C-alpha cells in the first residue's frame, strides 16, 4: 500500500515547487508587471487550488486567467469554472499528450508547468509511470515547437507515486526514441536499468530522463531538485 501523506502538496509547495520556481524564474530573467507568466497545472480533484493561491501570493502570476487548469471530465471542468482560471478538459493529461497532442498544441508554451499526477485519481496499473514520462517528453516537444523567439524558458514540476511496480525503462526508452528529432541520436537503453524498481533507482531514472528530454528539444537545463514525501516523488526542472 503506497504512502501518500494527506498534506503532501503543501509540503511540496513550500519545500520544493515554489522555492525552485522562484529560483528558476530569476535565472530566466527579470519579471515586470506586464510580463505574464502562463501556467499549466493539473487540477487536483479536491478543488482546493492550493498551488494557484501560492503562485499568486508569491507574485508568479498576475492574473488568474493566466493559469490553465487541466482536468479530464466534463463535471470536473464545470467545478473549475468558478476558480477564475482557464479550464482545459480534453481527457487525462498523459493520454492527450501521447495520443492527441495537436488538440492542445495552440495553448503552448507555458512558463510554469505543474504535472502533479498524484492529485489526479490515479489508477495504479502497469504502464502508468511510463505514460506519465512519455507525456512529459511530449510536453517538452510542444514547448519547444511553440516557443516564441527568442527561446523562452520554463520550470516544470513532475510529481508521481513511487509504487511497487517497476518502471519498464526498455519499453519507455523505445517509445521516447520513436519521437524523432533532427540531430538527436536517441537515448541509449544500455545507460538505464531495464526495470527501475527501488525508489532510489526510480528517482535517479526520472531525473536523468527528464534532463535528457530537455536537451533533446534544445533546452539548457538550469538545474533540478527533487523531494520525496512518503511515496510521492516530485522533481522540478528549470530549462531555457
Amino acid at each position, binding site marked *: 500500500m503506497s504512502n501518500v501523506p494527506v498534506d503532501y502538496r503543501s509540503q511540496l509547495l513550500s519545500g520544493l515547487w515554489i522555492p525552485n520556481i522562484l529560483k528558476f524564474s530569476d535565472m530566466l530573467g527579470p519579471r515586470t508587471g506586464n510580463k505574464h507568466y502562463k501556467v499549466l497545472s493539473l487540477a487536483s480533484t479536491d478543488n482546493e*487550488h492550493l498551488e*494557484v493561491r501560492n503562485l499568486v501570493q508569491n507574485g508568479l502570476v498576475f492574473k*488568474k*486567467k493566466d493559469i490553465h487548469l487541466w482536468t*479530464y*471530465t*466534463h*463535471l*470536473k471542468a*464545470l*467545478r*473549475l*469554472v*468558478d*476558480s*477564475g*482560471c*482557464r*479550464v482545459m*478538459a*480534453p*481527457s*487525462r493529461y498523459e*493520454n*492527450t499528450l501521447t495520443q492527441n497532442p495537436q488538440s492542445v498544441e495552440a495553448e503552448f508554451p507555458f512558463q510554469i508547468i505543474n504535472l502533479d499526477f498524484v492529485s489526479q485519481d490515479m489508477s495504479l496499473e502497469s504502464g502508468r509511470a511510463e505514460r506519465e514520462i512519455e507525456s512529459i517528453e511530449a510536453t517538452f516537444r510542444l514547448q519547444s515547437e511553440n516557443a516564441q523567439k527568442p527561446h523562452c524558458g520554463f520550470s516544470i514540476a513532475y510529481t508521481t507515486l513511487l509504487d511497487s511496480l517497476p518502471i519498464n525503462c526498455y519499453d519507455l526508452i523505445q517509445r521516447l526514441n520513436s519521437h524523432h528529432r533532427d540531430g538527436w541520436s536517441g537515448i541509449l537503453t544500455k545507460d538505464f536499468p531495464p526495470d527501475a524498481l527501488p525508489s532510489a533507482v526510480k528517482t535517479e531514472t526520472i531525473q536523468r530522463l527528464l534532463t535528457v528530454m530537455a536537451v533533446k528539444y534544445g533546452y539548457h537545463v538550469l538545474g533540478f531538485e527533487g523531494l520525496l514525501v512518503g511515496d510521492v516523488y516530485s522533481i522540478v526542472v528549470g530549462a531555457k
Partner: protein
Amino acid sequence: MSAEQSAKPIETGEIEVQVSRDIVSHLSFGIYKNFARAIRELISNSYDARATEIRIGLDLESNPPRVVVRDNGVGMDKNDMENRLFRLGNVTPFTDNLDDLGRKRIGQFGIGFLSTFPYCERVVVTSKKEKEDTIIEVSAETSAFFQGETFNVTDYKAPFSKYNSDLPIEKGETIVTLESIKPHIVKQLQRTRSQRSKASIESFDGYEKFKWTIAQFAPISFPPDRTDLREYFEVKGRTPLRVWLDGEELFRNVPADAEILQKGEQSFDNIDVKYVIMTPNKPVQPEEARGLQIRVCDVGIGLPTDFDVIKLRSRNLGRLYYLCGEVQILKGIVPVKIDRDSLSWTESVEKMEIFFRDQLTKLNEVLEKEAITDKAVRSEIEKLQDPEPLLEELESLQLIRYPKSRLRMKKTAKHTKQRVQPEPAKTLESVFKNRGFEVIADDDVASADTLAIEVRANEKQVIIRENHPSFKEYVTVLNESFEVNYEDWKATPSLDSACKIQGTKVTFNPNHPVFQLNLDVEVLKKLIVGVIITVDKNPRRSELCDQFYRLLMDMF
C-alpha cells in the same frame, strides 16, 4: 468529445416542464432588469436548498461563453427536478419558520430559476442529491420559454441523463450552467471604463458592477473587518452563506470608514426590524448605496432607499447622501413584489417607512450641525501657527469629522452672524468635550515654543493654552500690524467709541452698534482702524469719525 468526457449515462429520458400560467403569464423578460439580479435568484434558490457555499464562475472567453453557479446544497434527484425546479410559477407560501440551518425560506413565486432564461440560449442543471450516488443532468432550450418579449410556455419536455456520481455519497451539489450567454450581456460584463470613477455603479467596469450588485443583494456576511456589524446582526443558530465570484469571496458592501450613527430595533404591528444607520462622513459612494437597504430573509429587496424623504418632506436635506445602512426584517410577513425590488404596501410597511423618514431627517440635522461645528473648529485652528499637523491629529481622532473640502470654507457664510470677539478656546473646548475628550484649560503665560493645543490621545485629553500667542488676534492695516483686545465701554454714535488705538495695540468695543452692521466683521475691524489712523492727526477728527459712522450705518 473524448471518451472520458462523455461518460456513458446510466439512464436517459425527459422531464415535463409544468407552468403555472397565472404567475408566468404576467411576466415579460424585462421584469428582471439586469443579469446580476437574475443570478440573485439562483443564489436564493441555493440558499433555500440549504447551501452554505455558492461559487459563481464567469467563463466569458470560452466559446460559447457561459456562467456557472455551483452550490453545496442538498441537491435534487429526478423527482425534485420534476416537482420543484421545473414547475414554474409554483407558489410556496411565505413562512416565518426556520429550517435546520436557522434560515427562513427566500423563494416564494417559483420563478427565480426562470429569471435566468432571457440571458442565455440553454440552461443546464446538474445535480447530485445528498445520500444518493447518481447525478442527474437536465438541459432546457430557453427559446422554448418565451416568444418576443413575453414568457409563453407551451408543452416542453427537457431531456435528462443520469450518471454515476464522482462525489462522496453524503454530499449534495447543484451546478447551474447558463450556456451561450447573450452577446449583449457578455459585452456588458466585459465593458471597461477608461476613467474609473466610484460615483455611480454605471461608471464601474462591467465586471465590478456585476460584483457590486451581487454583493449588495446576496444574504452574505459583512466584511471581516466590520466585527461591529457582524456581531450586531448575528442571528444565533443561523448558518451563514458564503459566496465566491471567480475564486474571490464576496462580502456585503459597506462604505469604507462608515461609522454607526444609530442602531436599534423597532416593531411596526407584526413586523420586527433591526436597523443600523451609518455615515462615512462624506458622500456615500457609489450613489446607489445611499439610503437604507431593506432585507427580507437577509436578501436585499431593491436598492437602498431614502423612503422618498426629500419628495415627501419637501425639504432640502443636504447631508442625506452621507447616510447609508440596513433595515433587516426579522419577523413578520412582509409582502414583496414579484420582481423582489420593492415591498407591497400595507399599513405596517407604511409605519415603517414613516419611522425611517423621521430617522433620516433627524440624522441629516445632526450631520449638518456637526459640519457647522467642524467649520468653526477649523477656522480657529487655521489661525494657529503650523495648523496642519494638529488638524491631521484631530481628524485621526475624529475630533474633526469632515475634510475641509466638504465644509465649503472658502466662501463666507453671509447668513451666519459673526462674533466680534472670537473666543477660540471656548469654541474648541465645547466641541472637544462633546466628542468625548476631557479639556484642560491652561491659563498660564505660554510662549510660542509650546503647543497652543496639545492632544493626549491615550488619556483622551486636550490641553488648550488660552494665552498662547497663536490665539492672539492681530489686524493689519496699511502695513501696520496691531494686537487686538476687547473691552466694553459706553458707546456713542461715532467710530471713536468703537475703537481705541494705543501704539501697536487696538482695543475694540464689541457692543458698539457699528458691529451690528451686516458686514463681514474682519473687514469692518480693518475699516474702522483704517479710518481712525487716517483721521488721527486731522483737526476735524471727531467730526470725521461721526460722519464715517453715519455713512456706515446708512450704507449697511
